């Protein structure tokens, strides 16, 4: 907003005065971040409770958990001091931090409740329900294996996803652009596409000599379909007038594809990339549970086999962070590439 106003501010003498007054007005100082103060206190209370209330059973890492909670409390307190009464707009970093106050409080309260019903009073049956410190213990004691699993999962899902997305994109563009390609590929995509990629599992493990090759194929297949279909629909939806403009100015077909069809279809392509990401992760986990003897999926299944539910939940948490991180990355990329679009959904 501000940058546009700045860029065009000088253009319009009449508007100039009004907009300058609107934008340059100094914002009044804000009250001290009360949400932060409350959150810090609740986190510190959670730390004290964890430390001083005795565990129902012999659990490791209780003190580390208390320490971590206390550290979070202190950090929030420091943030309260640092933010002070400085004015901040809602979308700024500080504004977002201020808005997060209620969540920080809720998280601390959730931790306390979780701690009470598991570690302190064992209301929920073990071993299915795990105390927070036990999950923390997995991270401190089994981080090497967990880390390796993350790495193995990434090495499997990233190439597979990218391969599928790239082929899907090219297929979609070709289908949208060329009647010939559309004629031959459309029926195939229609029949095969909606089939869940996991249904190919037996075939893939039979057809590929290595489980790695089979899984990459399946993950690529999972991302291929949505990317291809949405790219295709995006390219088909490009208005004829967009092509007319470029054609009258001497554009080659290649220019029309690269500089008109593809950019116009990009919003739709990103929907496909987003859907493909979810499908790829889902195939990844299944493939790791079924055939690949490594990665987070395998780790979870292995943990479940040994009834180490703490390990299972820890892996689940890591997987969630991984998926969410991947989606965040994708949305960042989209925000950069599609900054010309209005009203993008924020992730």
């Amino acid at each position, binding site marked *: 907003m501000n940058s546009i106003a700045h860029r*065009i501010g000088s253009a319009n003498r009449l508007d100039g005065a009004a907009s300058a007054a609107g934008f340059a007005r100094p914002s009044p100082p804000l009250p001290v971040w009360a949400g932060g103060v409350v959150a810090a206190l609740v986190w510190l209370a959670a730390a004290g409770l964890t430390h001083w209330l005795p565990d129902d059973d012999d659990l490791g890492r209780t003190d580390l958990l208390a320490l971590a909670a206390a550290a979070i409390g202190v950090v929030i307190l420091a943030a309260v001091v640092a933010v002070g009464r400085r004015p901040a707009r809602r979308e700024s970093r500080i504004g977002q931090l201020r808005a997060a106050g209620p969540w920080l409080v809720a998280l601390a309260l959730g931790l306390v409740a979780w701690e009470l019903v598991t570690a302190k009073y064992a209301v929920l049956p073990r071993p299915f329900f795990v105390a927070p410190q036990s999950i923390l213990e997995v991270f401190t004691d089994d981080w090497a294996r967990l880390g390796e699993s993350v790495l193995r999962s990434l090495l499997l899902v990233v190439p597979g996803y990218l391969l599928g997305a790239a082929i899907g994109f090219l297929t979609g563009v070709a289908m949208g652009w060329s009647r010939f390609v559309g004629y031959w590929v459309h029926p195939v995509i229609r029949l095969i596409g909606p089939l869940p990629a996991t249904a190919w599992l037996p075939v893939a493990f039979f057809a590929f000599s290595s489980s790695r090759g089979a899984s990459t194929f399946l993950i690529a297949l999972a991302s291929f379909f949505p990317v291809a279909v949405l790219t295709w629909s995006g390219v088909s939806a490009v208005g004829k*007038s967009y092509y*007319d403009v470029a054609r*009258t100015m001497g554009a080659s077909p290649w220019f029309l594809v690269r500089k008109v069809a593809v*950019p*116009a279809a990009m919003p739709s392509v990103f929907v496909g990339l987003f859907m493909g990401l979810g499908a790829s992760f889902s195939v990844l986990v299944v493939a790791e549970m079924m055939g690949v003897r490594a990665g987070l999926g395998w780790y979870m299944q292995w943990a479940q086999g040994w009834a180490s539910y703490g390990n299972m939940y820890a892996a689940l948490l890591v997987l969630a962070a991984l998926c969410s991180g991947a989606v965040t990355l994708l949305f960042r990329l989209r925000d950069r590439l599609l900054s010309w679009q209005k009203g993008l959904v924020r992730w």
Partner: protein
Amino acid sequence: MVSGKRGFRLEVRGVRHAFELRGQDLPVLEDVDFVAEPGEFVALLGPSGCGKSTLLRLVAGLEPSSEGSILVDGQPITGTDPSRIIMFQDPTLYPWRTVRANAAVGPEARGTLKRDAARIDAALALVGLADFAAAYPHELSGGMAQRASLARALVNDPHLLMLDEPLGKLDSLTRLAMQRELSALWQRAGFTALLVTHDVEEALLLADRVLVLSDRPARILADLRVETPRPRRRDDPRLVALRSEVLGLLGLAEAA
């Protein structure tokens, strides 16, 4: 902006055109026949929906006509060509490109981006959008988008420039200024111009000849020569007389 290039001689010979609309033939142009001499400024006036934009699309080479032929400098046209540039009625700017990048589409498509850099900036300055070069289309007003589209057309240095209601969305002050700029540009650059407009005064101020078209299917009702020397004043008695004549042809005699 100026190349001193000669304008095309445009011949529209017996052009008939019909669209198919829900299985029915919709005749849009009926035996349209005229010649625009090199460097001539011809205005097309006619009721809404009569087929003016269609005629421009045919001359641009975007569609073949159902019947008749269109020749430039004696050669029948075979398709689109950057020497015949059309500014569409709808701005159709690419929303993913900035104003400057939109204006640069033509040179970019032909690989002359470097050579034409100055032309692009000059065209943006001419339409008064130099300060908005970095803005995206959704940040423009309707009139600004139209001016950006005009800049995008001018950048190409055409021999034949077709303008489809280029100033339709402008306020009357900007409109007057842009009419002056267009007239001056045409006199400097020497291209042949085909202007579609709803505004009788605009046609009389800018054009050497005004073709008045009938209701759909469009036929040429009258071919009026505007002899008044430039710069013209809209209250010139000869223009006022021509204006009543045109309005009469369009069935709006009482408005005159």
